[in-house]
Structures are given as C-alpha cells and as structure tokens.
C-alpha cells in the first residue's frame, strides 16, 4: 500500500464512526473560529499597547496635586512655589508644570481651522480637533518631545492660561508647536511650518515647530491618536500636573517630592504620584488584563481540543488494531500505516477547520455588532486553519505511531 492520499478509504472509515467524527469535526470548527478571533483581538490590543507616547518615558516622575485655597486666592504664585520646592530635590534635574500628558486621561480637545471662519461662510476650511498640552517653559524639554523641524518656544512666548477666566489665554497665545500628524491633517501635502492656524476659527496661532510623535491623553481611533498641539500657556488650574526629569529611578524621588510639597502646604490633595512608566502601565491595565484573559481562553481551548483529538485518535487506532494487522500482513509498511492515520486526522481536522474559518468570519460579525471590534483581517484565516491542522497532526502523532507498530500477527490474534 502506498503512502498516497487515500481519501475514499478515509471517508468510508469515518462513516463507520459517524457520531465521533461529527463530534470532533464540530469541536475543531468551534475552536478554530474562537481561537482565530481571540488571537486577532489579542494582536489588536498588543498593537494598541505599543502606541509610542512620543516622550522620553524613563526617568520621568509625575505628581498631580490639587491646591485647596481660600476663594479668590491666586493659584499661579502657588504653582511657582511648588515648582521651586520640587527643583531642589536631590536627583531631580528639571521640573515643569503641564495640564495634560500622553495617557494621562485629563484631555482638553479644542478645534482649530486652517483659515478664519466668518459667519455665513459656505465653504468651510479644514478643521482638526487635537488635544492641547499646555506647559511652563521647560515642559517640552522635561518631557523629551523631539521637535524635528522649526524652533522651540522662546521665553517671551509664554502667557498665563487664565484658567479661572474661562482659559482666556487660549485667545491670546500666538505660537504653537504641533505634531507631524496634526500638520499633515491640517495641511495635507504642504509644509505646515510658519503657517497660521485658528483657535475656534478666529484667533490666529503660528506653527513654529513640528514634533514627531506624541500620543493623546486618551487614545481613540488609531489615525487620530497623535493629533497634538503644544501651546506656551502656563497652567494655573487648581489641579496641576508636575513633571520631573530624574537622574536614576523615577520612583525614587516620589516620596521626597511628596514631602517637599507637603512642606510648602498640606492643604492639597494628591491625585497621582508615580513614574511615567507606571502611569503608562496603569492606562493600559485593562488591555493587559484583557490580553491575559484572552490568552487563557485560547490556550485552554487549544489544550482541550488537542486532548480530544488525541483521545479519539487512540480510540480509532485501538478499534482498528485488527484491520491494521491485516494491512501489515498484506505488506503495508509502518510508514504507510502512520501516514494513513495522520491523513485521516487531516481530513477531519482540516475539514473542521475549514468550517471554522467560515464560523470565524461569522463570529467576527457578531462581535462587531456587540462590541467595538474591527473587521477580522483575512490574513488570520489561513494561519488559523494551518495552525489547527498542525495541532491536529501533533495530537494524532503518538496514537498513529502506536498504530504503525501493530504487529502483523494481530490480524490472526484478533
């Protein structure tokens, strides 16, 4: 007997064990559908978690502090005092205050246009809604944002944000540094450097510098995640985000910084005290948890499936000990017996996985209707199919090997 594909024989053999074949076939199909989708979801989450922040993440410490002050008291000098206290902590090289950070949640999204918008305009200019990051003089430097073209802010560019008067500073600021993504969106195919953009469609701000990558405080859809505008506005909200560039481990200065700020005044609430690395991990905690849950589901399903395939293969091998003996007695080689059982497995698992591929597409549609799940990328389908076959072949190998070692004399012993 040759090791060639013996499809009709296999089909006849499977028909004899209809119930078990159907059971295995369905199980493989379901597993293939679920695992393909699960792996696709994991890949999506991993991609999301790899979003670059665009800042120098190591050696950066973050403290969010809310000052409790009597009504009417001015917050700006209080923030300057806090910065002064943080500057002298051993290990801290530079400090700044900002009002938002990549992955920091607090998000101020404001509309900008490429031209002035007048009432009654019928043709509207391009409008982009970036997240604003405002900071004191050293903010970009402390963050480690790479300004790849143009200039940095000059000291005379900085103005107070005037948070208490409805962020009036936003209407007075004259220059901005924007991300490459924002520049491309606002002026597609043109150089944005030196051009004006308009806050809320009226007050002009000139783009003086372009930064490469910076992520939003809250990620949304992937093409929008790097729309950022930096403005030279010094934050003066009661809640201030202090950032510190540190020599060595960022966590090591947190305790000292807490004490330093409490020495200034204890009439404050700390909303956040951590290294930027921890802040980032915190932002993606849910995704990380989801990845491990999905991974556990995938591994458990594949494991259970492999166990099932193995069990059924050994059942079949055992049931056909006599036939195998007959074949061996009639001259079949060990190899051809081995390949016969592996081919049988290939037919059931390959067929089941093929149905699984169709089910995977259907499951993806269902998930899309219920959750924010993107279209299943088609490249996952052949990979999933092939992986199922590989798992099936591996699981069936040991029983098939046992079959191949059946002695020809089994034919007469029964």
């Amino acid at each position, binding site marked *: 007997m040759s090791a060639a594909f013996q499809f009709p024989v296999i089909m006849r053999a499977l028909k004899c064990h209809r119930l*078990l074949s159907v*059971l*295995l076939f*369905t*199980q493989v199909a*379901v*597993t293939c559908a679920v695992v393909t989708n699960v792996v696709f979801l994991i890949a999506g989450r991993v991609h999301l978690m790899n979003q670059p922040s665009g800042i120098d993440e190591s050696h950066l410490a973050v403290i969010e502090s809310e000052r*409790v002050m009597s009504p009417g008291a001015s917050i700006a000098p209080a923030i300057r005092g806090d910065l002064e206290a943080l500057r002298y902590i051993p290990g801290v090289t530079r400090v700044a205050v900002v009002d938002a950070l990549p992955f920091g949640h607090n998000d101020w999204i404001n509309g900008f246009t490429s031209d002035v918008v007048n009432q009654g305009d019928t043709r509207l200019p391009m409008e982009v809604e970036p997240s604003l990051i405002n900071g004191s003089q050293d903010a970009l430097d402390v963050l480690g944002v790479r300004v790849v073209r143009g200039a940095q802010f000059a000291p005379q560019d900085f103005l107070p944000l005037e948070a208490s008067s409805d962020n009036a500073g936003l209407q007075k600021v004259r220059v901005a540094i924007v991300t490459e993504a924002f520049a491309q969106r606002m002026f597609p195919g043109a150089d944005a450097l030196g051009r004006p953009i308009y806050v809320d469609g009226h007050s002009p701000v000139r783009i003086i510098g372009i930064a490469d990558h910076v992520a939003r405080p809250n990620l949304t859809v992937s093409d929008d995640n790097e729309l950022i505008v930096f403005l030279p506005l010094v934050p003066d909200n009661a809640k201030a985000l202090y950032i510190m560039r540190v020599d060595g481990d960022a966590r090591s200065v947190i305790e000292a910084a807490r004490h330093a700020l*409490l020495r200034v005044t*204890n*009439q*404050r*609430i700390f909303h956040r005290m951590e290294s930027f690395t921890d802040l980032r991990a915190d932002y993606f*905690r*849910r995704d990380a*948890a989801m990845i*491990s*849950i999905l991974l556990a*589901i995938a591994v*458990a*399903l594949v*494991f*259970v*499936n492999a*166990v*099932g395939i*193995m*069990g*059924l293969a*050994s*059942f079949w091998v*055992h*049931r056909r000990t006599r036939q195998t003996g007959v074949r061996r007695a009639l001259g079949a080689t060990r190899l051809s017996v081995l390949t016969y059982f592996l081919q049988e497995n290939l037919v059931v698992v390959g067929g089941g996985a093929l149905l699984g591929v169709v089910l995977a597409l259907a499951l993806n549609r269902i998930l899309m209707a*219920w*959750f924010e799940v993107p279209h299943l990328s088609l490249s996952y389908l052949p990979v999933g199919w092939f992986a199922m076959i590989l798992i099936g072949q591996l699981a069936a190998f040991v029983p098939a090997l046992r079959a191949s070692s059946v002695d020809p004399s089994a034919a007469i012993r*029964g």
Partner: protein
Amino acid sequence: MFAYYMEIAIGSLWRHRLLSGLMIVAMALGIGGSMTMLSVVHVMSGDPLPRKSSHLYIPQLNPLPVSYRNDRRADPSDNLTWPDAKALLSSRKADAQAAMAGGHLLVTPGASSQPFYVEGRFVTSGFFDLFGVPIESGHAWGPTDDEARARVVVLSQRLVSRLFPGVSALGRTVRLGNVAFEVVGVSGHFDPQPQFYGDVTSQPFGQQDDYFLPLETAIDKSLEATGNFASWGHRGSGNAMTSPGVTWLQFWVRLENPTKVEAYRQFLDHYWAQQHASGRFERVPDAKLYVLTDWLAKKKVVPRDLNLQLVLAFAFLLVCMANTIGLLFAKFSRKSGEVAVRRALGARRRDIVCQFSAEAVIIGLVGGGLGLGIAQLGLWTIRQQPDDYARLASMDGWMLLATFVLGLVASILAAAIPAVRTSLIEPALQVKVTE
C-alpha cells in the same frame, strides 16, 4: 454493589493514568471557567438588601416635555425634580419615604492635616428608617431639622476613624464642601451592593457612603451633587436644585403590603393627573412603581459583557464535555471484551451503565474539586482588575455547592452516551470475537 463499582472504577482510572488525568483536567478547566463567571454574575445580581428589598419601591414620574430629546445613556425621567419629591414627601402616603442624591465633597479637617474627597449622600430624614441604616452612636435627624436646614451630619464608622481616631466624634464639627457640620450620629455597617438607591446608570458597584447630611441643607448651601442632572426650561437664574425643570433626585418608598402598593400607585397617577391638569406635566398620567429587584433588572446593572462572558464560559464547558465524551468512548471501547464477558455472565445493561458511570462520577468529583481551585484562581484574578465590581468577586456557600453539582451533572451527562453505547454490546458476538 456500589462500593464494588467504585473499586473497579478507581482501578481502571489508575491503569490509564494519562488519559484519566487529561479528562479530569479538561473537566476542571470547563467547570472552573464557568463557575468563575457564574460566581461573578451571581454576586452582582444578588439582593442588595435581603429581607427588606421586597417592600422597597421606586416611584417614576415623567415631567419631561414631549419634545425633550434624550441623546444620553441615562434616562432623565429616572430621577425626580425637587418640587415633585417634596410633594411626595409631604403626602406621607408610604410607610417610609426619602429623597436623596449623591455628593462628592471636599473634607478640610483643618490646618494640621491634608484635605481629601469623600463620597456620601444628601438625604431627607426618612432615609435611615426606610433602608434600616443602623446608627451606632448618637442619632439621626428629624423632619424639623430637614426644614430648619440644620447643619448636622451622620458619618460612617470608616470616616470617623479617619477624622477622629480614638475619640468620640459626637458633637464635633467637620467641614464638608467648605460648610461646617455638627456630627450628630455615627452609622454602622451599611453597604448594599449594588448601591441601588443612587444613580445606578453611573457606577452602581463598589461605592460606599461615608456621610449622610440633610438634603435641604445641601440645596441651601448649593453643595455639589453627583449623578445625572437633566434640565429643560430652566434658565441660569436661581438655584437649579429647586427648579421644577431639573431632575436629579432619587426617591424611594417602603410599602408593606399589596394593598398599600396599589393605593400608592393610584396616588401617583392622581398626583400626575393634577400636574397634567395644571399644565406642568405635558404627558398623560402613566406613573410607574418598581420594586427594588425589578428596578435593578430594568436598569440592567449587570453589565452586558459579563452575561456574554458567562455564555462563552458555558460554551467552553460544553466543548470540554464533548471532549470527555470522546475520551470516555475511547476508553470504554477498549473494555468491550470485559463487558461481553460480564454480560454473558448475567449482568444487565443497567449494571454495565452503573459500572461505567461510577468512573464518570469520580472524574466529575475530582474535576469539580480541581475546577473549584481554578475558579478561585479566576476570581482572584478578577479581584485584581480595575473594574468597580471587581472587589465583589468571590464565592459563597451556594456557589461552592453549585460547583460540585455542576461537576457531577456535567460528567454524568458526558458519561451517559458512552456508557449506554457500551452497554449495548451483544454478549455472544463479543465473546466470539475477542476470545
């Protein structure tokens, strides 16, 4: 006979250690996964106030204009306006009633310590009797304090031990949202989960109130309330909290028998009809009165994701069972000779089924036990998650019992098909073939 079957079963399982082990692990994974999800859903759909909940009702009026378009997830007609709440309160038609709203307030303990935020509730005096909030020391306040807008507060034991460690809090002053309140009472343990009496559309799980202060005082001082504020026809001037065009208050009543429930329903419709006649309510009377558990079901406090995960977990258990069926088939089929001999010696089909089911029972019990461990691990993992319901994830006695029952039922079901198939072996034929 049973002991004998058990002995055979254990011997047989031991002979095929690897196969038995795989079956047990497969069952344990299935049971562990589904019990983890079942426990979470069980805890979350549990009764937040056992023994009291069946008498607690939430009345629903709809003062919104017909033209009001709601594009948010929260329904503004879930809550009442202050004038309507006040009218229902002063009618005193229920056995107990209270209006309430959540409050997120800054606590300023003084120059020597750091300020912080606490969650608590602005309530009318009936609140404590309505829900049976225990007062450990001191007392709650009465209706006269409500009207006098008294600056009194009942603190939780948790907040007291933070603010006044080691000393009595009664009579002391605490500054909440920049208003000085006198501590008149300390409440005992009161932590219904979900926090059904708050705005359940935002975060009903994992919240606990640390203070209770008079609602009218909060309105008087314009303390910031949390939850859904929905307004229509209210223009800037005047206190939004007392406007007839702003819904923001939750209102609960206790009705001790069906007659009273019916009477209260009629009262609500009557009140609505009056408001409709006066032109304030545009809609025709259609008052609703939900009992606590129906209200939670209506507001779908158990997240949909969780129900989906539960279904998936049970689907996974089915896959595991399908596996065990296959593996048991494989196993029993090797014993066809043995079965044939037993049948030939006079064993009935029933005996054969019993003998093989004994093996399944053992697999089920061991798999269930192992599954229990997996479920505990799963619940521990969930408790580490940042979700607001995560800390509740644990197993009670019922769930422990359910795990074993599930393990037994699942494995017996999984064993039934192969056991019956095996018992169908014809004695003579098999004897002839095998020997």
